[in-house]
Each structure stands twice: as structure tokens, then as C-alpha cells.
């Protein structure tokens, strides 16, 4: 029996010793960035290792480690050749001739040819799917491809049913990744999912769902062997755990760290924070209904939002305010558009309607909560700004899936806070989806915008297409059909010894890093 304090101490000491025996000494040391080998705390996992199956922007970077796309983008979003070196549209826009590199190997050593190109972008998307299975997302993205004609192992011609000016854009977006025809036909989809191979800079050597990806540099990579020879991507969904991962140096880099933490960690010795705006945007999806059925209220609502204050309060000034639903600097963003925060104009517009702070218009303002950083908090702040000009917004949380259902059913409230991802910067993938009344992604249905957008969907003159979208965005903002809020912000905190290449579209590509 324990009778004395000494007995208690003995018991405690024994327990501690037992615990200690179970813990090897190596765990007592902090992990350090070994040259050529890094660990990255990454917030999300791939849903499947079939890179053509799902078009999810957050996992595009993970796929780009193992697979390649026909084209790619430089850090400043400039279009760059990748597996495809040259591309030329026919005059009528119904065909696209591409030239493929002749020095590209898949991870099994087999050579990539135009047969793989045809298989990826024509045969696979058209394959019959067994009952109960879903079609590949590439079957939607490349539905206009009628045929891919093979000219030689490095020459192919895409033939479209209708002009597809964004074909070049789609070649470096979402799930357009080259897959090996011979290997997939040999091992089948189940075999491929077990051991996926691509032409990318890294080979996948170990994978545990929702936990970890281990990547090994591909020595025969056409772009040169990556400097970092081994990359471990630990899937750490909880942002606090990602902060802890980099703070404890168990990870050499942590992605999407909360902005205040990123700012704090950036000042810590041995750590560097990269915080910058990306091409994702936060916008208000408006509807022409209820309290927002009059354009003057929508315009007043836009004028009343102090985006600079939102930026400072929620992103420490690292975001970029936008008026139109596009990232600034992208081809569809009208340079001459400065809508501006002006409560006087907002009050005047509301007064025209017979409303003001003492006689407010009632609206419902839906927002996701926790889907993207500070969504709910920003919505509440905006509601506070609106109250000052006579718009009384009832803020209601909405699930992402409920948003989709209500968008489809046309029952979204007057305003909904929403985030839209577009790593390419192409205006069709902003306004072409968000403002086209025929798109399943648009909330505001304006015939005028529809008339402006429809010809742009097949416009092959790039300058004319971009100019057209700038006009669309300008019209949408000035008519009160769209309210842009801020561009998204990407945060990466990493050990100072690691050189991390930032991309304006938020890509995380370890093969461009060095230690």
C-alpha cells in the first residue's frame, strides 16, 4: 500500500520510466530539413489516383507532382509548353494541331506518344462506364472533341464539333493529365489506382489514403530531375496541426496556414512565410429577387462594402480587392473599372428607393462557414456595413452542397458569399461560368449578359474574346449584377533553407523548389 510521499514518487518515477522506454531517443530530436528530402504538411488528399476522374482545383498540385498536362503555366501565369510544344488552331477553330515532345517517358520507362494523347483526351472520356460508376470529368471538359487524328508519334489533331477557344486553357487546368494508354489497358483501372504512373517529376512510391503520399524524383523527367529527391506530403487537414507541424519542424513546409499564424511564423528564426494573393476569388452571388430586385439596391450594396477594411481585418492587407468577378491582372479584368467604396452614393441610391438606415430593406445573406478562410466572419462584417446604408441583411450559414441545390433550384437568397477557383486566369472560367445565364454555375440570370457571353464562347480571336469579357465584367458590375470582394490568399510557411517557388495561381510544385 502507498503510505508515504516517497511511495507516490516511486510510483510516478516508475510510470515515467515505463513511458520513456517506449519512446526511442530519435523522437526527442526535432526533425530538420535533410538536404534533398522534405516533408510538407498539405491540407488535402486526392480523392482518387485516376487524374482524369475529378476536376478539383485544390488537388491539382498533387496530381501535377505525378502527372503532366499538355501545357502549363509559369509562376506569373504565362502559358508555357509542357508535353505539347506547339499548338495551332485551324482558321475556323474546329481543329487544333499539336506537336508533342519526343523525349518524354512514363514512370515505367515507356515512351509517351500521340497515342497516349488520343487515349487521354478522346478514348477515355468516351468509354462506356459500368452501371453505378460515374463518367470521368474529362468527358464533360472535352465533350466538344469529335476525334483526335494521329499524324505521327509526336503529331496529333484535335477535331471539335464546335469551336473551342478555351481548348488551350483546358490543357493546363483541372483534370487534363496525360495517362499511359498501354499501361492502363494492361493493368486496368484497378491496377492503375494501386500503382499510378505518369510522366510527372515524381514517382508515387508510397500512398496511404488521407494520410501520406511519398514521392521520389523521376530521374528521366523530361524537364530535368527535380532538386528535391524525395518529398513526403503529409495530409494534415486541421490548420492548427499544420501550424504545429511547421513550428515543431516536423514538416519543412506547411500549406494554407491561417494568415495570422503565417505572419507570426514568418518572423520566427529559421522560418519564412510566403503570403500572397492568388487567382481564386471571393464574390457575392446575387439574385434578381426580393430586396435585390431593384438594381439600385444591389449597386448601393456594392458601394457600401469597404473591401480595403475587410482585407486589412481578415487578411492583414495581403489580399487584393476586386470589383468584378475575376482576379486583377487577368485578361478579362477591366483595368478601367474602379467601382469604389462610397457610402454617400450608397445612401443616395437607397434614398431614391425611399429607404435608409431608419427604414431598411430586408434581405437574406447566405454564406458558407469554414469552407474558405473567414467566410462567415466576412459576411457578418459586410452585413454590418450594409446596415449603415439601410440594408438589413439576415446572415444565414449555408452548406456547400445546399448551395448547389438552391442554385440549381433557383432559390438562393438575395446574396450568397461564395469562392470560385480558376488557376488559369482565363475569363471564360470566371465570367463565362459565373455570369452566363445558361451556365449551371450562375446565380444572376441576365439576358443582356447572356447575349454578350454567348458569342464569346466560340470567339477564336483571343484579343476580341478577352475584350468581350472585359466588357461583360464591366457591364455586370455597373448594372449591379455582380459584386467581387477579394482575391484569395495563399500562405506557405517553410524552413528558410528551402527555396519555395510561389505561383500566382496558388500551385504548390515541389519540383520547382530547392533546398
Amino acid at each position: 500500500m502507498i503510505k508515504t510521499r516517497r511511495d507516490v514518487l516511486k510510483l510516478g518515477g516508475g510510470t515515467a520510466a515505463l513511458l520513456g522506454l517506449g519512446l526511442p531517443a530519435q523522437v526527442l530530436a526535432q526533425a530538420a530539413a535533410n538536404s534533398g528530402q522534405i516533408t510538407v504538411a498539405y491540407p488535402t488528399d486526392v480523392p482518387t489516383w485516376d487524374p482524369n476522374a475529378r476536376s478539383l482545383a485544390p488537388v491539382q498540385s498533387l496530381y501535377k507532382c505525378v502527372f503532366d498536362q499538355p501545357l502549363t503555366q509559369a509562376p506569373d501565369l504565362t502559358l508555357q509548353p509542357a508535353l505539347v510544344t506547339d499548338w495551332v488552331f485551324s482558321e475556323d477553330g474546329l481543329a487544333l494541331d499539336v506537336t508533342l515532345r519526343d523525349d518524354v517517358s512514363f514512370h515505367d520507362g515507356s515512351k509517351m506518344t500521340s497515342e497516349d494523347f488520343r487515349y487521354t483526351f478522346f478514348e477515355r472520356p468516351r468509354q462506356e462506364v459500368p452501371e453505378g460508376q460515374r463518367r470521368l470529368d474529362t468527358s464533360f471538359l472535352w465533350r466538344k472533341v469529335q476525334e483526335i487524328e494521329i499524324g505521327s508519334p509526336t503529331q496529333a489533331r484535335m477535331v471539335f464539333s464546335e469551336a473551342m477557344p478555351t481548348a488551350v486553357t483546358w490543357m493546363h487546368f483541372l483534370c487534363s493529365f496525360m495517362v499511359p494508354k498501354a499501361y492502363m489497358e494492361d493493368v486496368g483501372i484497378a491496377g492503375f489506382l494501386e500503382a499510378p504512373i505518369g510522366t510527372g517529376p515524381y514517382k508515387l512510391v508510397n500512398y496511404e489514403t488521407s494520410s501520406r503520399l511519398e514521392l521520389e524524383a523521376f530521374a528521366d523527367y523530361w524537364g530535368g530531375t527535380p532538386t528535391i529527391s524525395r518529398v513526403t506530403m503529409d495530409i494534415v487537414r486541421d490548420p492548427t496541426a499544420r501550424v504545429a507541424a511547421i513550428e515543431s519542424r516536423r514538416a519543412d513546409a506547411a500549406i494554407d496556414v491561417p494568415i495570422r499564424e503565417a505572419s507570426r511564423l514568418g518572423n520566427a528564426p529559421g522560418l519564412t512565410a510566403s503570403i500572397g494573393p492568388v487567382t481564386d476569388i471571393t464574390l457575392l452571388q446575387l439574385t434578381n429577387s426580393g430586396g435585390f430586385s431593384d438594381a439600385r439596391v444591389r449597386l448601393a450594396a456594392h458601394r457600401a462594402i469597404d473591401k480595403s477594411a475587410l482585407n486589412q481585418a481578415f487578411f492583414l492587407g495581403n489580399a487584393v480587392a476586386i470589383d468584378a468577378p475575376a482576379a486583377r491582372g487577368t485578361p478579362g479584368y477591366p483595368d478601367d473599372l474602379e467601382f469604389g467604396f462610397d457610402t454617400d452614393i450608397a445612401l443616395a441610391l437607397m434614398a431614391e428607393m425611399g429607404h435608409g438606415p431608419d427604414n431598411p430593406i430586408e434581405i437574406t445573406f447566405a454564406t458558407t462557414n469554414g469552407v474558405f478562410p473567414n467566410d462567415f466572419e466576412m459576411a457578418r462584417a459586410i452585413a454590418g456595413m450594409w446596415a449603415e446604408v439601410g440594408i438589413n441583411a439576415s446572415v444565414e450559414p449555408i452548406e456547400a452542397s445546399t448551395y448547389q441545390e438552391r442554385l440549381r433550384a433557383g432559390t438562393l437568397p438575395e446574396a450568397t458569399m461564395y469562392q470560385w477557383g480558376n488557376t488559369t486566369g482565363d475569363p471564360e472560367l470566371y465570367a463565362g461560368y459565373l455570369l452566363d445565364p445558361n451556365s449551371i454555375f450562375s446565380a444572376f440570370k441576365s439576358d443582356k449578359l447572356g447575349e454578350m457571353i454567348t458569342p464569346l464562347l466560340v470567339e477564336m480571336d483571343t484579343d476580341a474574346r478577352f475584350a468581350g469579357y472585359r466588357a461583360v465584367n464591366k457591364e455586370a458590375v455597373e448594372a449591379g449584377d455582380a459584386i467581387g470582394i477579394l482575391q484569395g490568399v495563399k500562405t506557405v510557411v517553410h524552413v528558410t533553407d528551402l527555396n519555395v517557388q510561389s505561383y500566382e495561381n496558388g500551385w504548390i510544385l515541389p519540383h520547382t523548389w530547392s533546398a
Partner: protein
Amino acid sequence: MALVILRLLGWRLLVAIPTVLAVSLLVFIVLRLIPTDPAAMSLPPGATAEDLDRLRTEMGLDLPIASQYLIWLGDLATGQFGTSIFFRRPVADLVAAALPNTLELVISGLVLGVSFGMALGMVLFALRGGMAAQMLDLAGSAIMAIPEFLWGLLLIIVLGVSIPLLPFFGRLDPGLATPDRITGSLMLDAVLTGNIQVLGSALRHMALPAMALAMGLVPLVMRVLRASLLDVAQEDYIRMARLRGLSESRILLRHALRNAVLPTVSLIGVQAGFMFGGTLLIEVIFGYPGLGNLMVDAVRNQDLPVIQTVALVYCVLVLALNAAVEVLYLTINPRLRST
């Protein structure tokens, strides 16, 4: 005794069938009543309104809820759990990969919680009446007041960052390959393949999530065991043991504990059920690839086939656990075998 246990298990199985059916119906109806559109969630840019309608038809979402339920039930009866909307993989594969991990986590949490709870319960009993016992009791109250996910974060900050003793994400150290899949349980497979390095690494990675899960159990077990020991200590056979000159530690371990442990076993059965619920947040915080993580992903993406299946698996697990506890109870309490 075997006959009694078999009879008990048979009865439990009989009761389990309507329970599982009721849970399946409840989950199905609740999921269908929420105004969501999983079809729209899974469509990429480029999809049209016609694509959406076609997909809804393919997924059976345009059918009446009763028909959808009966189809699903029929599929379940033939072992078909459907295909995940988000992962585009068979739900059975996803669950089969995640289930052993969650079982490992819960079992580790139970072992830690019960071991520490019982040890501290005995310490509390031994120190009864003293200031140290009161302090320990107070600490127990404080520990219970903190939810599991907060323990997870606290443990990460204290033992992962401030005093970096233990890893807090992933299941193995970088560079270590998972052993060949035999049972699906990482630790068991490491043992079966004789891979000590992997086993050690897996145990270290398991420590913090299991501790976070165990924290809520420790004070409960400690208090219930202490109370039982105090009751048992008044029994005649304990007095007789003292008169025979046995040491206090011998009396405690050989005589009192065996009889005092019964209420603790009941408590463990109930708490283990709650532990499965606790895995949801713990697995997300620690990046642990179990059913909880799968469920959170499924809920975020309105992956109805996965949500339904995982909810049913949780239900079956809790029922199986309750049955196991009753068997254990029966084994250690001979008086119950005659009733």
C-alpha cells in the same frame, strides 16, 4: 459457460437486426430530407443542366425516398455498398481501408484509458482521505471537462511542439513503407511481417491520438473503480484477509480488485461506444486515415453512399462492442451465468 455465452450472443444478434434496420432508415431519411444536391456537387465545369438531370437519374435521386431506400437495402443485402460520389471508388473498399485504422485507434485509446484509469483508481483508493487524493480527484474533474478534440490540440502543442517528444500527424515516419497488407491493421501487419521498425514508428504515431481519445475515459474509470473499491473494502472477506495478515497491496490486487472491477467493465462498454464518436474530430486533427476522417470528407461532399455506410458501420461496431462487454462481464462474474 460457453452455452450461456452463445445464447447471449444469439439474443444480441436477434436484437441487432431491427436496431440496424432502424438506424439505416433514420440515416437514410434524414439525409434525403436535407435540401442538398450531391449530383450538382460532383459535376465539373462544362456540365449542362441536362447532364445534371441525367446524373440525378443515374444516382436514383429522382425516385421517391421509399424506393431509394428499398433499392439501397436490397443492394446492402447483396453486399453492394455502392460507389462513392466524391472518391469514385467502391464504398466497401474505402470502408475496408479505414475501418482497421479506427479500430486500432479506439482499442489503443481504450487500453490507455483503462490502464491509466485503473492505475489511478487504485492510487486514489490507496491515498483515500488524504490531500493527494483530493487533488487527484480535482484533476480528474478538470480532465473530464475538456473535450477530446481540445485534448488533441493541447497534446500537439505540449508534446508535439513545446516538448517535441511525439509525432502528431501521419502514421509512420517518412521513408518507412507500410508493410504488406494482411489484416489491414498497420500495427498487426507490422507484427505479422516482423517489421519492428514500422511497429515502433506506428506506436509512436499512435500515442498522441490515442491519448487524446483516452483522456475522457481515465477519470471516469478512476472514480468508478475507487468507489467500487471503497465498497468492497467493507466486505467481510477483506477484513478476514487483513486478519490473516495479508499485505494491503496483496489484498487490493488479489481480492478487492477482482470484485470491484465489475462496474468498471460496464462503464468501459458504454464509454467505448462514445469513443467511436470521438474519433471523428481526433482523426481530422491528427490526420489519421480512419472512418472518422472518411465520414468528415463524405459529409463535406454530400457523399451519400459513404455517409450511409459509415453510419451503419458505426452502429454495428457499437452493437458488437456492447455484446463483447457483456461476454466479458459474464466471464468475470460467475453469478450472472445462472440467471
